[in-house]
C-alpha cells in the first residue's frame, strides 16, 4: 500500500516537473494582467489580439504551408527511399541507412549552418530554402518509420501477387501498400511535428522577411514578452499534442477494431 502510494507520488512529481512550465504558460495565456506575477482574472483577450496581429498571422500561414508541403514531399521521397533500401543487399543497406541517419544525429545548428552555406551559393534564402531544408531533415524520420513495416511484410506476399498475374505496380498497390500504410502515416505525422518543432535550421535558412512561428516567437521575445505570445505558444503546444495523439491513437484504434472483428469471426 505504502509502496504503491510512493510510486504514485513519484510518477506525479515527474509529470509535474515535465509539464509545470507548460502549465504555467497556459495559465498565463488566460491571465488578465500584463505582469507575470499577478493574477488579474480570466480573459481570452490575448487569443483575440493574437489572431489580429498581422505578424503572427503571416508567420502562422507560412508555418502551415511549410509544414504540410514538407511533410507531404518528405513522406513521398522517404517512402520511395525506404522501398529502395529494403530491396538492397544487407551490406549496402547498412551503409545507406547509416548515411541517412547521420542528419538525425547531427546537431541541428550544424545542419542549419551547413545548409545555409550551401543555399547561399545557389539561391536567395527564403521560403523555398526553408522548405527544402525541412524536407531534408524530415526524410530520415519517414524512412525510419516505413522501413520496419517493409521488413515485416515479407517479400513472398509481393511475389505471390506477381505469381497470380499482378503487374509489379498492381502488386505493390494491392499487397505492399496496405501493409506499410500505417508506417507511412506515422512517418507523415513525425514529419509534421519535426517541421513544426524546428527552430535552428529554419533560423539559418530563412533569410529576411520569411518567418515561421518559432522564428517569429524568437525575434519577438528579444524585443520583450507580449502576453499574445503565451496564447500563441499554448495553441502551438495543443496543435502538436493533437497531432501526436492522432499519430499514436489512430493506428491503435484500428488494430483494436481488427482484433475485435476477428474475435467476432471466431
Amino acid at each position, binding site marked *: 500500500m505504502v509502496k504503491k502510494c510512493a510510486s504514485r507520488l513519484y510518477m506525479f512529481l515527474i509529470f509535474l516537473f515535465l509539464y509545470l512550465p507548460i502549465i504555467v504558460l497556459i495559465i498565463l495565456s488566460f491571465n488578465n494582467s500584463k505582469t507575470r506575477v499577478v493574477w488579474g482574472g480570466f480573459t481570452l483577450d490575448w487569443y483575440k489580439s493574437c489572431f489580429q496581429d498581422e505578424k503572427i498571422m503571416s508567420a502562422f500561414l507560412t508555418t502551415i504551408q511549410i509544414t504540410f508541403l514538407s511533410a507531404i514531399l518528405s513522406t513521398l521521397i522517404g517512402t520511395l527511399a525506404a522501398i529502395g533500401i529494403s530491396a538492397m543487399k544487407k551490406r549496402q543497406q547498412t551503409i545507406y541507412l547509416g548515411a541517412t541517419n547521420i542528419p538525425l544525429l547531427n546537431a541541428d545548428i550544424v545542419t542549419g549552418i551547413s545548409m545555409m552555406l550551401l543555399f547561399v551559393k545557389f539561391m536567395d534564402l527564403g521560403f523555398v530554402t526553408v522548405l527544402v531544408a525541412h524536407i531534408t531533415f524530415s526524410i530520415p524520420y519517414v524512412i525510419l518509420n516505413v522501413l520496419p513495416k517493409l521488413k515485416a511484410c515479407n517479400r*513472398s*506476399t509481393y*511475389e*505471390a501477387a506477381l*505469381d*497470380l*498475374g*499482378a*503487374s509489379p505496380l498492381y502488386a505493390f498497390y494491392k499487397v505492399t501498400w496496405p501493409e506499410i500504410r500505417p508506417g507511412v502515416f506515422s512517418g507523415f505525422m513525425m514529419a509534421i511535428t519535426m517541421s513544426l518543432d524546428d527552430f535552428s535550421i529554419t533560423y539559418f535558412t530563412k533569410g529576411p522577411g520569411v518567418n515561421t512561428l518559432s522564428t517569429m516567437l524568437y525575434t519577438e521575445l528579444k524585443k520583450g514578452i507580449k502576453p499574445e505570445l503565451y496564447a500563441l505558444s499554448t495553441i502551438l503546444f495543443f496543435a502538436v499534442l493533437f497531432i501526436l495523439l492522432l499519430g499514436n491513437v489512430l493506428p491503435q484504434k484500428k488494430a483494436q477494431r481488427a482484433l475485435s472483428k476477428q474475435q467476432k469471426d*471466431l
Partner: protein
Amino acid sequence: MSKHLIDFIDISKSYDGSLVLDELNLYIRENEFLTLLGPSGCGKTTTLRLLGGFETPDQGRILFDGEDITNLPANERKLNTVFQKYSLFPHMSIAENIAFGLKISKKSKAYINDKIKYALKLVNLDGFENRSVDSLSGGQQQRIAIARAIVNEPKVLLLDEPLGALDLKLRQNMQYELMRLKEELGITFVYVTHDQEEALTMSDTIVVMNQGYIQQIGTPEMIYNEPENAFVADFIGHSNIIDGVMLDDRLVEILGVKMPCVDEGFGKNKPVDVVIRPEDVELVDPADGYMEGDVTSLIFKGVHYELDVMANGYEWLVHTTKHVPVGTHVGIRVTPFNIQIMHKPESSDEKAVEIDE
C-alpha cells in the same frame, strides 16, 4: 505422359559468386508429379524460383511448351506457386485471397464466387470465406494458399515444401489430398521436399539433388531399389554403405569377405560402393553367415526392431521383426539380389556425391 512440358537446358545460377546450380538439365512431362528431393540448401527452391520467374539464370534456357520463357516476367507465366513461406495476403479475407488471381484475369463475379466455393471444398475448408488470415492455423493457411493457386487453373502448379510446417498426421492427410487434387485437376505438379518418404509416396518421378547437381532421376521404385550412387542410397533411407572391391562379374569383396551378387560389367578388381538396405540383412546362426558379429544395440520402432551389429569392424544397421537381445552372437547373410553395387565417384564434379556425415 509423353510430351515435354518444361525443359531446363544447361541452367546455371550463382548468388554472390557461389554456384548454386551448375548446368542443370531436366525435363518435366505433361501431367507428371515430379518431385525435387534433396537436403537443405541443395538448390531446390532456386530451381523452382527460376521456373516461377522470380530469378533469372546466369546461363541456359527454360522452355515451356517449346517456348523460351527464360526472360518472361513471373506475372505472364502460365503457372502458379505455393510458396515455402506462408504468403497469404494478411489484410484480405480468405475469399479475397482466393479471388485475387481471378480478379486480375477479369472473371465475372458469379464465376469468382463459384470458384471460391469450389476451391474451399477441394481443400476441405468450406465456409471459411470471411475468416481472416491470422485466425487460421498453419496447415489451414497452407491449404488456402493451394486453393488460391489452383482456382486459376494453371498448367503447372509449383509447390515448395508446402507441408513442411505441419505435424505428421496432418502431413499424411495433406499428401493424400494433394494426390487426389492432382488426379481431379489433371495438372502437372512440381513438388519440392527434403522428406524422402513424402517424395516416395507422392511422386511419379523423383529428382534427387545435392549441392546443385542432379544425382539421379527416376521413379520412386528405381530411386529406392536401385540408387545410382552412395549419396542417393544414403539420402533415401539409412543404409549400410560399405567400401568394396568388385573382384569379377557377380562377385564382390567387402570387409574381407567374398559375396556373390548379381551385378556385372564393372571390370576386375574395381573399387566400388556397396549398398545393403537394413531390411535386407538376414540374421542367421553364426556358422551359416558370411561373417559373425555381436548385437550392440536394440531399439523398438513399432513395426520392426532396429539393431546395430558389430561384425568385421563395421557396424551394420539391421531391421528385423525378431527380438534379438543385445550381446547375442549372430551370423550375417545377404541374398545376392539384395546387394547393390555402385561406382565410386571419380571426376571432380561428382564429388557432390560424397556423403557429409
